[in-house]
């Protein structure tokens, strides 16, 4: 018996299409994540029409959409959305910028850290909503109290992440700064800030979430505009559709801000391998 005869031919080498396949899979997953909320809406719509769920609490998506359209055309929707966005914007600046400066300074200075860290640790666990009455007392019922509420919410995650961000910077980079005679401001600008930026972006994203919660809460008390007011007012006049419009708008703002911040992060932190 010849040896050759016993040999089975090798299967032809499999084509290398791994990359293409994983790309297809990724696209498939993206489709799935778009499809699942749509499927939920369709299911919801059908359930309402069949009378399975109570339309008084869960109005059909189509009727909520009709209300949204009507409010958009009357300008009412924009009025409330604009009011909330402006408060969010100012709250972000008022809370975020000092948080950034203080957080980075704390990361660079052990003395400052020793002084401020216990203060942050003591005040951070207080629910921000619990100090709402105090804020109203100090800042009154006007715009200032809303802005301050958002600012408080943004301050903590940004400051705490900035501290961590600076502490996570490899010490060798600070040695390089000293070796090249960098001034305090140069160390801040060329090492501490860019080095801590990935953490700071995480803090800002967390701050967006907290800011949205707090803007909604603070507009429910003593405001005449804003999405929080829209939701609260809808409860008082039992306009459930308008309530859903307010919730939808807050969700939409959160969604868009997250994407905006992700894009900003890719632009500001191009040096982190994706």
């Amino acid at each position, binding site marked *: 018996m010849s040896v050759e005869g016993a040999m089975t031919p090798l299967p032809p080498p499999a084509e290398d299409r791994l990359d293409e396949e994983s790309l297809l899979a990724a696209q498939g997953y993206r489709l799935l994540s778009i499809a699942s909320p749509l499927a939920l809406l369709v299911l919801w719509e059908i359930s309402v029409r069949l009378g399975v769920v109570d339309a008084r609490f869960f109005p059909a998506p189509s009727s909520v959409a009709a209300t949204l359209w009507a409010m958009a055309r009357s300008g009412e929707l924009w009025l409330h959305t604009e009011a909330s966005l402006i408060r969010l914007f100012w709250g972000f600046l008022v809370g975020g910028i000092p948080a950034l400066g203080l957080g980075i300074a704390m990361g660079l200075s052990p003395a400052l850290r020793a002084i401020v860290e216990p203060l942050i640790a003591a005040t951070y666990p207080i629910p921000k909503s619990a100090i709402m009455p105090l804020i109203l007392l100090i800042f009154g019922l006007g715009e200032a109290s809303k802005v301050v509420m958002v600012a408080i919410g943004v301050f903590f995650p940004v400051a705490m992440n900035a501290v961590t961000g600076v502490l996570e910077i*490899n010490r*060798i*980079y600070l*040695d*390089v700064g*000293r*070796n*090249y*005679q*960098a*001034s305090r401001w*140069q160390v801040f600008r*060329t*090492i501490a800030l*860019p*080095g801590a*930026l990935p953490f700071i972006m995480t803090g800002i994203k967390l701050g967006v979430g907290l800011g949205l919660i707090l803007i909604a809460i603070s507009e429910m008390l003593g405001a005449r505009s804003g999405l929080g007011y829209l939701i609260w007012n809808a409860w008082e006049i039992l306009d459930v559709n308008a309530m859903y419009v307010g919730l939808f708008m807050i969700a939409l703002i959160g969604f868009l801000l997250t994407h905006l911040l992700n894009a900003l992060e890719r632009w500001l*932190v*191009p*040096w*982190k*391998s994706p």
Partner: protein
Amino acid sequence: METASGAPAKIRLRHLAKRFRTRRGVLTAIDDVSVEIASGSFFMIVGPSGCGKTTLLRIVAGLEEPSAGAVEVARANRSKPVNAMIFQGDSIFPWMTVWDNAAYGLRLRGVAKSEIREVVGHYLDRTGLTRFADAYPHQLSGGMKQRVAIARAFANDPEILLMDEPFSALDEQNRTLLQQELLRIWEEHKKTVLFITHSVDEAVTLGDRIMIMTAQPGRAKATIDVPFARPRSVIELRADRRYGELIYRIWGDLREEVQRARAEAPA
């Protein structure tokens, strides 16, 4: 200042000592090291791990204070920075491009843009990094990153260059390549270099003089002149009979220290 060889001294260490207070008492890292380094020379310090050679370099760099003694650097030009250090391991900023890293020192000093362009362009060219000027460090190999660190230090145009085992993390082939490139760039201006290494090979390949340090506490045990002419080829050097002899001789001094360092190292 003048050294024994007659050349003016660029760096002088006078009775340098560094002691740390630890829980187990006072630890002497460096004990009474005095040395004069001739202007324009490539001075190597070789010693076992933990002999305080990195501490010594950090003191010369001004990153640490000596417990006793002094460091003197003869300054030729007050407007230039005293030193630039090439660190062990990754020290280039991951958030800056290769170009921005190499320009770091010049920008901090507020040097004119046109001069920065010229100087940085030159050193990126000399280190073979021109094509990677816009790349970020995470896109580079270890050898490339160390080239950026070399370009950054040379571009800053300091009075003296300090190098802390800059090639110790590289594989042997890359190390040989970078040693040759370093020598080539150094030949241009022959700035005084203080180079720390634990590799006897490297000390003999690069140095004009080699100081051997004792294991902890670090003291100057012997200083040896390297006879090879410049410019050197780090490969051709190895065919020289004196190369092997020199390494053998230094090992004679070092062996005892390495063994002592191992015996004393915490398990």
